């Protein structure tokens, strides 16, 4: 049995009287793609936000097992500290640095782990120059990896939607994560882009990075995920391989009987992509 | 304003010059002080005083021009304002700077340029001890005024307790420092407090009333005092209110209305003048006629400062240079101004050292007399 990269146990998150997550537990094996699915409002993004330091849940623990490092509690850390641990994320509504170029976006990710301070930057010390070169090389490598090398110097906002998704993934990979959390990466993409994404997730997984995938698109989940966890009303209702999940009556019930009318298996819900809003807003999960 | 004023004054003072042709030389007397910003009004009072003096100066062996330079009363802008005047080679003397802070920042430049500056209003005590070689002032410094105000409170009003409030301006704080020294030596027990200029003084008025003092002594300008006096009246303050020259302005009466009644106002100005009250009255009248508003605080001092410069220039014949004017002005002795007779001592102090006490009576600021006589 392989080691876990992330263990979540009994996570409970409440907003006022509303229980968003209710004793959620899951185990993510190192190197595998784990998908979290569930109908709208099931608590997927809340879970995500707990894992990445945006929310602090009332109960439960989240433990990260870095490769070759000591186990670390994730909760109570700020988002940037979580990232430093080796957990990177993307956003459901793409949040790129819109006015910067693609390569700059990726470099920001890479450089967040570098050491150059303002003094070094102003004097361009040898280390600074070394780091600068390294981040340039790495940025182009990552852009090539996600298939955006040709668009390196384009402004992020001007990229097609699918490219923006992949750029966001490249930026997250720039921070050298051991665990990459993708929040509905397929939302709003067309079938061709979806196929590219499928390949990309497999490629990422092959490089040894574990992938935690929140997704609506069942087809994508079934094709890339090794294991699936199903959330409904903030609770884990099922967990297992995609095949097991598909046959689980509770899951079918949740998707079909829970008022969620259409077949979440094929069509992603037509989500309005709201404009960027400030951080203090509660998520419309 | 410079260009406008220049033509205006040029035509009035040069009524004779245009006929006498190019034989006469033209010299410029300048004014430096705030013409914009929050203290603009005080500066404009003085600006007008100088303009009036120049307009009335006829029959001279030279022509006079006027320029002014706005320093906003701000020490940060004062050096540039002073430099502007120094650069103008026609300028042979400056009335100003008006404010103490601006003066401290400008004087090194005037001293270097040997350009005399006669301040009508910078009363900060130490200005004449800072080593400036071309600074004189026609007003008495705060040291004396503060001491005399305290004298008056102790002996004239026979107050046992007082509250000293100042507006935390360079002027007000300086004055109150000397008031406090005087009160201490006069045996008056007092509390003191600074006042952040605002509009609502009800809280501090309540505090002053609660302290049950015989007198409130204020260091600051009329705008704040007017509101403060109103608040004191509303809070039921029964003691005497004593303030200094910065508050002695008809605007005090106008703005505070009935609340200004009975306020004592000390000033190095306003005593019986050497030229008699007629001259002062004439000045008031001329000022009103020319500017369509009554002469304000320091208008008369500025008028005197300009006139004594002109008098000094007249004595020089054809040898009018900055250096010569500086020397001549510093040697001024017994100049009969509308405020008082002006003689500069070796420090450049042109005040008489006499402080006159006034009181608002029936909506008018009336002279009570020399503090030296009142507080015996």
């Amino acid at each position, binding site marked *: 049995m392989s080691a876990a990269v992330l263990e979540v146990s009994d996570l409970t998150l409440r907003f006022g009287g509303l229980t968003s997550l209710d004793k959620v537990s899951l185990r993510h094996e190192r190197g595998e793609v784990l998908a979290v699915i569930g109908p709208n409002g099931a608590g997927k993004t809340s879970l995500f936000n707990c894992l990445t330091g945006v929310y602090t849940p009332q109960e439960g623990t989240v433990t990260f097992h870095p490769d070759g490092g000591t186990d670390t509690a994730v909760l109570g850390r700020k988002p940037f500290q979580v990232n430093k641990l080796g957990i990177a994320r993307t956003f459901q509504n793409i949040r790129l640095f819109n006015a910067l170029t693609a390569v700059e976006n990726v470099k920001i990710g890479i450089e967040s782990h570098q050491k150059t301070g303002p003094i070094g930057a102003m004097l361009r010390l040898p280390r600074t120059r070394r780091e600068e070169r390294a981040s340039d090389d790495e940025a182009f490598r990552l852009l090539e990896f996600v298939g955006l090398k040709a668009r390196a110097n384009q402004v992020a906002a001007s990229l097609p939607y699918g490219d923006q998704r992949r750029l966001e993934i490249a930026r997250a990979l720039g921070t050298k994560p051991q665990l990459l959390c993708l929040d509905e990466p397929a939302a709003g993409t067309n079938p061709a882009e979806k196929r590219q994404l499928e390949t990309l997730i497999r490629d990422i997984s092959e490089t040894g990075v574990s992938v935690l995938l929140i997704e609506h698109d069942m087809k994508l989940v079934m094709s890339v995920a090794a294991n699936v966890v199903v959330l409904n009303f903030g609770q884990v209702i099922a967990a297992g391989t995609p095949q097991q999940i598909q046959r689980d009556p509770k899951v079918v019930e949740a998707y079909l009987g829970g008022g969620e009318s259409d077949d979440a298996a094929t069509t992603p819900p037509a989500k309005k992509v*709201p404009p960027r809003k400030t951080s203090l807003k509660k998520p419309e999960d | 304003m410079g260009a406008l004023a220049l033509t205006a004054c040029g035509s009035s003072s040069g009524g004779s010059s245009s006929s006498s042709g190019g034989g006469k030389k033209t010299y410029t007397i300048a004014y430096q002080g705030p013409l914009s910003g929050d203290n603009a009004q005080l500066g404009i009072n003085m600006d007008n005083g100088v303009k009036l003096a120049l307009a009335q100066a006829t029959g001279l062996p030279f022509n006079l021009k006027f320029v002014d330079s706005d320093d906003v009363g701000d020490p940060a802008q004062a050096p540039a304002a002073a430099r502007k005047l120094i650069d103008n080679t026609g300028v042979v003397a400056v009335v100003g700077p008006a404010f103490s802070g601006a003066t401290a920042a400008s004087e090194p430049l005037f001293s270097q340029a040997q350009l005399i500056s006669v301040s009508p209003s910078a009363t900060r005590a130490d200005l004449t001890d800072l080593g400036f070689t071309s600074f004189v002032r026609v007003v008495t410094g705060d040291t004396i005024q503060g001491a005399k105000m305290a004298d008056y409170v102790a002996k004239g009003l026979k107050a046992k307790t007082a509250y000293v409030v100042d507006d935390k301006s360079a002027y007000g704080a300086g004055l109150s420092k000397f008031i406090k020294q005087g009160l201490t030596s006069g045996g008056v027990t007092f509390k003191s407090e600074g006042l952040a200029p605002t509009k609502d003084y009800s809280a501090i008025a309540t505090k002053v009333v609660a302290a049950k003092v015989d007198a409130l002594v204020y260091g600051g300008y009329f705008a704040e005092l007017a509101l403060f006096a109103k608040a004191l009246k509303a809070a039921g303050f029964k003691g005497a209110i004593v303030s200094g020259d910065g508050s002695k302005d008809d605007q005090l009466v106008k703005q505070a209305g009935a609340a200004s009644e009975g306020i004592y106002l000390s000033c190095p100005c306003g005593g019986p003048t050497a030229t008699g009250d007629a001259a002062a009255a004439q000045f008031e009248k001329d000022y009103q006629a020319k500017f369509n508003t009554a002469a304000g605080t320091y208008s008369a001092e500025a008028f005197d400062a300009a006139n004594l410069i002109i008098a000094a220039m007249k004595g020089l014949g054809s040898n009018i240079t900055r250096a010569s004017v500086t020397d001549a002005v510093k040697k001024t002795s017994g100049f009969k101004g509308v405020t008082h007779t002006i003689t500069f001592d070796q420090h450049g102090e042109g005040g008489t050292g006499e402080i006159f006490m006034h009181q608002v009576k029936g909506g008018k600021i009336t002279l009570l007399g020399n503090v030296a006589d009142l507080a015996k």
Partner: protein
Amino acid sequence: MCFTQSFWQLTISGLALGSVYALIALGYTLVYGVLQLINFAHSEVFMLGGFGGLFLVRGLGIDNPSGVTSVLLVGGGMLAGALLGAATAFTLERVAYRPLRRRGAPRLAFLISAIGASFFLLNLAGKEFGRFNNPMPPLYTSGKVFSVFGAQVTTNQLVVAASALVMLIALDRIIAKTRLGMGIRSVAQDAEAASLMGVDIDKVITRTFVLGGLLGGAAGFLFGIQFGVQYNMGFSAGTKAFTAAVLGGIGNVRGAVMGGLVLGVAENLGVACVSSAWRDVIAFLILVLVLMLRPTGLLGERLGRSA
């Protein structure tokens, strides 16, 4: 304690001042609610409102008014102030804000154009109306009306507080009940969604400015009754009112009122306890402390939620 003997006196005068702060603060908060912008020039709306009221009262030139005449004078002055304030606010929106919105200017550009408008109006008023403080002609015989806990309440304080209260309640109702209020709330919550739902955002914004201008202008007159009207009266009052708005939670109507009152009282008690010289420091320290503990002000943000 330092203020035991005059606690109520200080509180009452603090409330009177605070209610004026509150009225001005509403102007900031309303505009902030819909535009998320500090309308820096609102202080000049307040100032011009003061002049509007002053000129009307002066123009009528009634000596020693009393009774009904007094009530009419106060009402008329307030109306004149409010109208001039509203006209100023309307013009401001048209000249200094709308063209920038059309161009999608950065947020700080709005700030600068508002600062420019403030400089412009302030100095123009000084040029046209003189730079002295103008006391308001007496509108009624002022004096003690009644006492509370040994503290006297003056006519001035009563008039100011009562007028402010009436306007605050009116505004609260307008926001809660009217179509305009609904429009304002919807734009405050989500401008994009509101416009998709057929709300004319431009119209709502204009009317918000006008509403804030009405209150600010009337506040100028009320302030003028107590302290006179002067060309530069807006800056410090405006800064305080803005502080009050933030203190209460900017964008929050009731928060602005609460912030204004808290600030007015706190300043007065602070003067009694510490010194008048530290008055503004006290105000700002309270603000900093509140924001440290409650980063979005006493009552939290959001026009949409509060009303």
